[in-house]
Structure formats: structure tokens, C-alpha cells
């Protein structure tokens, strides 16, 4: 059975770490990804860029609205995900606007941090 493991961190805390500490944590992740990739446990994983890079898309009454910032509604809950390839944010936003839940929920568009 498949599971999605969502990583919630503390950006403020990460910002306080020095480069060697960060490098050490990244190495742990790389080792884990390599191990899981080999064993077939991981079907994919990525680091996301910080929430300052996030945008949120909603469509209400056929009108698309894009706002700066991560998803922040308390009455909506994480229900699914897509990992997409897009040439820039505009295309990513367009793709987001096609997802059915965009009509009653929100789609957060967060860039992947390429490693």
C-alpha cells in the first residue's frame, strides 16, 4: 500500500543553522533517498522551496484568483497532490487551475528545490 510522508519543518529554525549543520542534514537525506531508491521503498521525494515562494490558486464562479503565500485556510484539508513539470510559474498556475478541487478548495503551488 502506498503512503505519502509529508515533511513539516521549522523554517525559522533552519535559518539559524550554520552551513556545516545544513550540509550534514542534506547528506542524511541524500543517503536515505539513495537507500530507499535502491530498495524501491521511495517512489520519489523532493525538498520544497520555502513558503515565501508559494502561491495559492482558487477558482470561484469561473474566476481564477492567485494570491501570494501558502495555503492557510483552517476549514480546508490536504486531500491530494500532483508533481508537475512546468516551464515557469505561470504554467504551473495554469495547471493548478485545472485541478477539480480548485473550484471549492485551494491549490498551493510550491516550487521544488532542485538538488
Amino acid at each position: 500500500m502506498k503512503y505519502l510522508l509529508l515533511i513539516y519543518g521549522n523554517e525559522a529554525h533552519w535559518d539559524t543553522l550554520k552551513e556545516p549543520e545544513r550540509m550534514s542534514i542534506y547528506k542524511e537525506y541524500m543517503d536515505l533517498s539513495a537507500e530507499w531508491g535502491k530498495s524501491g521503498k521511495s517512489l520519489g521525494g523532493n525538498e520544497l522551496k520555502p513558503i515565501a515562494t508559494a502561491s495559492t490558486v482558487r477558482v470561484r464562479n469561473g474566476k481564477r484568483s492567485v494570491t501570494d503565500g501558502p495555503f492557510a485556510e483552517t476549514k480546508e484539508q490536504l486531500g491530494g497532490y500532483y508533481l508537475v513539470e512546468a516551464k515557469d510559474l505561470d504554467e504551473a498556475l495554469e495547471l493548478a487551475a485545472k485541478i477539480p478541487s480548485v473550484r471549492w478548495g485551494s491549490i498551493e503551488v510550491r516550487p521544488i528545490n532542485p538538488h
Partner: protein
Amino acid sequence: MATVARTMNIDQIYREEWGRVLATVIRMVGSFDLAEEAVQEAFTVAVEKWPSEGLPQNPRAWLVSTARHKAIDHLRRARRMELQGDDDLARTADSRSSLQKHSDESFLEESMRDQSGHHAPMNHSSGNDERLSLIFTCCHPALAQESQVALTLRTLCGLTTEEIARAFLVPLPTMAQRLVRTKQKIRAAEIPYRVPDKRDLPDRLEAVMLVIYLVFNEGYAASSGDNLVRRELCQEAIRLGRILCELLPDDPAPRALLALMLLHDSRRSARTGPNNELVTLEEQDRTLWDRDEIHEGQALVEAVLRAGHRDEYAIQAAIALLHAQAETPAETDWPQIAGLYDLLCHVHPTPVVELNRAAAVGMARGPDHGLQLLDEIAARGELEDYYLLPAARADLLRRAGRKSEAAAAYRSALALVKSGAEKQYLQKRLLEMETEGP
């Protein structure tokens, strides 16, 4: 004498060319920060060299070319730092993505690839006008509105961070951080540097016009800081409006916005009294109105309406024009204004628009009609904390001769009002209601 003239020329050239040069260089180097630094340095060289060497034949091309060379210098330095393992310095040059894409240093020298993959020719004079790409990028909906405003003023108008901070009554470090974060988001989320597709253009243009209008209103409002800064903001907004009209020659939308701003601005000199007190439209000395701005506004309104364009800016501009055309307050065509507000309520229904309509109806058909509409707004629970609702009621009651009721309404307004000038005005009216005979 000659030195002063040359200095003034450079200031003027800065004003006129900053946005255009920056927009071009951003296209060339693919980075806001790198471009800003390079263009800043180019202008610094200009200030140093031009007074003694004279103005170049094509100042714009000179600035673009100089900026490009400065940018190449930066990239070379950063690349050296990176090769030497000095990662921090390499990062501060904000050129990582460029470096990753262009590993060949001679490539950097030959040309800089623009986003469509074309090589910018070495000796082109000044390139295409990239300001449309710049303004649409600055006003991208994925950026917070206050960020859109700040970045637009910084990049298109060349206002310094300090000037922008002062204009919006925000501490300098806050504004500096806002600009830094905005550019970071553009880079990190890869907001593209381009003019939106035709399909998206109307919505995106709406966002741009809203930013320009916000800048204008910030300058126009009685609540902001010092006079000089406020006037500058209005001027910058009008400049942006003109640029937009120039870049979109077939679109009536920016013309409607420009008309509205010009017509409001035409009353600038008449709006405040000698002690900085508020002078209402009715009481203004109309000889102080700027006739040139009114004529320009009029021509724009007529062109916009002829084109069948009826958005909220167009209708508000038409209303402003009717006021501008009245030689005296008594000659104001209130019925037509009320009719236009009816239309505006259709196109842009907001409680504030309803409020303005009520005031106009009160003037066109009699205070009772206006008061009824105000009652309806209040009954809906709208504008509860907005001082202009009781103020509008007070005004109509005053005109109807219902003094004690007017006084009560003025008191309600005073309880809610924020700005000093508006407060003074309301207090003056309250005093009139309390001291005049029956």
C-alpha cells in the same frame, strides 16, 4: 551655469530613462538584482563622466551598453569567487542560475541570452521597450499587493527605497526587506519576465492598473505624510499611466485610468486651504483647477467612451469630468452624475460606490431621496465603521435644514474619522449646526 544645466539634464535623463534602461538590462541578464546593480553603476558613471565629456549622442544606448559591461564584470567576479571556492561571495552576486546555465566565460562576453533564446546583438542601440514585461512582472498576482506597488515604484519609476518607505509611512528596513523578498520570490518561483498571453492580458492589466491607482490614491489621500511626497506619488502614478497608454496604444482601459487620475489631480491646488485644511469640491476656488489636465482628461474620456469602454475607471472619469466642466457648483449636472453612479453601481457594486451614489442622488433629486439610500446602506449593516456614511448623512440633513439631526450625524462621523484635515472639516460643520440660529 552650464554645469547646472548639465546636472539638471542628468536628473531628467535619470527620471525618464531609469525604468526603460532597467527593463532592457533585466531582459539581457535575466536577473532583477544584477540588472539593478549594473544600471545603478552605469548611472553613477554617467554622473561622473557626462558633465566633463558631454552627453553621449544616444544616452539610453550608452547606459544600456555600460550596464551590460558592468553586469559582465559582476558575473566574471562571481565566477572567479565560485572557482576559488568563495561560495558566499559568489552567491551575493546573485548570479548562480546564470552561472549554471552559462559555463563558458567567452559566451558571457559575446552576448547575453534573453528568455526566448535569442542573442541580444552586441551593438544594438537600445533594444525593444521591455517596460511592459517589467510592469506585468512587478504586478504579478503571485506577489503580495504591497510588494507589487513597491517593486513597481522602484523599478519603473526609479524611486529609492527610502523614498518609497517615506511615501507609505513604513520604516526603511521594512521596505528594503519587502523589495528583497519580492525579487527573491520572482527568482525562486520563476515568475517569467514577459507580457502575458492575450487570453490573460485583461486580468493582468487590471492588476497593473490597480497598482497604479493605489499609488495615485496614496498620494491623493489626505491621510498620508508630507505634501511633497504625496504630490510626487500622484505624478509617478500619472507617469506610469502615460507609459501604459504608450505601450498599449489600442487599449482604452489605461486611458480611462489616466483620465481619472488627471481629472482628480487637476484639483490638487484647490483641495487644501492655507492652513492645510480640507476644502470640499463645492467650496474650491475653481480658478485654481489645472485647465491643461482637465482638457487632456476630457479628450481621453471622450475617446474612451467612444470606444464603448465602460469600466469603473471610465465611469468615474466621466463623473470627474462633469464636475470639472461645471464653472460653478450650482451648474453641476447632478442628474447626469447620479445616472453615472447608477451605472457604476452595476459595473462595480461596492458599499462605497453606493454611498457616493446616495450623495449624488441627494443633490440631484433632493436630500430625502439621498437619505433614503443612505438608510438602506446602513440597514444592510455596511460601512459601519466608515466615517463617510454619517458624514454624508450629516451633509444631506444640513442641506435639508434639519440642524439638530445634522449635528448628531456630524458627531457620529467625528467618532469614526481618522485624518486630521477631515476631522477639522467635520468639527467646523458641527459648530455651524450648533451655533446657527433655527
